[in-house]
């Protein structure tokens, strides 16, 4: 498909976020640790996909045969420039926790080497999910105007 025919809104995660928020607010019985972990991970990548497509359609190019694969760092950098530090960091921290760490609560290290000393205590629960969704809505609000 030609880039010019792509509709960026097809990857708009608003409905997904609303669905997750509905579960958090009204259907808490559906939440367990597995569900929370998968929601947090999905939220990060849904936002990343939406940003990637919008950026591609604006002319940004990444890697891969169609140059449509982007680095997380480019995504993070873009959002940090908008002053979304709290949202970027929160989602990033919890995304790493839910996808890379097994225990709950756990201690997350956001680096591989050699400056490993900075540990973040993380608990994956409803409060964490609320923070992530709030952050995600703020990022989405920016991305919809981008």
């Amino acid at each position: 498909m030609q880039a010019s025919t792509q509709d960026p809104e097809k990857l708009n995660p608003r409905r997904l976020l609303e669905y997750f928020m509905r579960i958090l607010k009204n259907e808490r019985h559906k939440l367990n640790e597995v569900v929370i972990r998968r929601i947090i991970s999905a939220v990060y990548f849904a936002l990343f996909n939406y940003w990637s497509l919008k950026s591609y359609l604006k002319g940004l190019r990444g890697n891969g045969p169609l140059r449509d694969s982007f680095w997380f760092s480019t995504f993070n950098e873009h959002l940090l420039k908008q002053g979304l530090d709290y949202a970027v960091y929160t989602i990033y921290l919890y995304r790493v926790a839910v996808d890379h760490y097994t225990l709950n609560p756990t201690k997350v290290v956001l680096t591989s080497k050699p400056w490993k000393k900075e540990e973040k205590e993380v608990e994956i629960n409803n409060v964490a999910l609320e923070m992530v969704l709030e952050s995600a809505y703020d990022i989405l609000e920016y991305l919809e105007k981008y």
Partner: protein
Amino acid sequence: MMLVKDYFNTETLLLGTRLSKSWDRVYMLSSIPPIEPSIPVRNVFVDTTLENTTRLHINLREQRVMPTIRQLYDMLRMSKEDVLMMLKRYTETDEVIDAIKRLRFLDLGKLASLVIWLTNVLELKVTNINLVEDLETGQLQFIGIYIEDCGWDEWKILSRTVKKQLVSEGFDDVAGRVALVCKQALKTRRS
């Protein structure tokens, strides 16, 4: 005479009130023109050798100066050693600074200027500076500047205000490669 409230927006003032407890001792931008762009900053801080940030802090207070990040950067460009010494106060190992230099991720003088601005102008308590990587690729994502005593709502205001300031001063690279992190916000929100 220009008051600080004219210089920073309302959000910053609210933030300052909550965070630093010292905005009631508001510094006024000097009516004597240290801030005027036409006057080189190094002429303003006549006796500042920048031996350490304490000295700078005293000078700023004595002269009631609210410098911009750019002005601090211009001043710091005079000495790489001062920049390194200042940054190492906030890093647990030299590896952090070495990595930023090796990867050419960010000009250390710009990073130091931002930290000085945060600690001396906004009077935030910066506890440390660290790197955030992508665990899957090992790629450096951003530099985290960790701040004590600020909550979730303050974190939002702080992020937006400081980044707006950085971009307005032409430091887009710093804005994109540094994340301000309110440690308390992540703790207090947890059950």
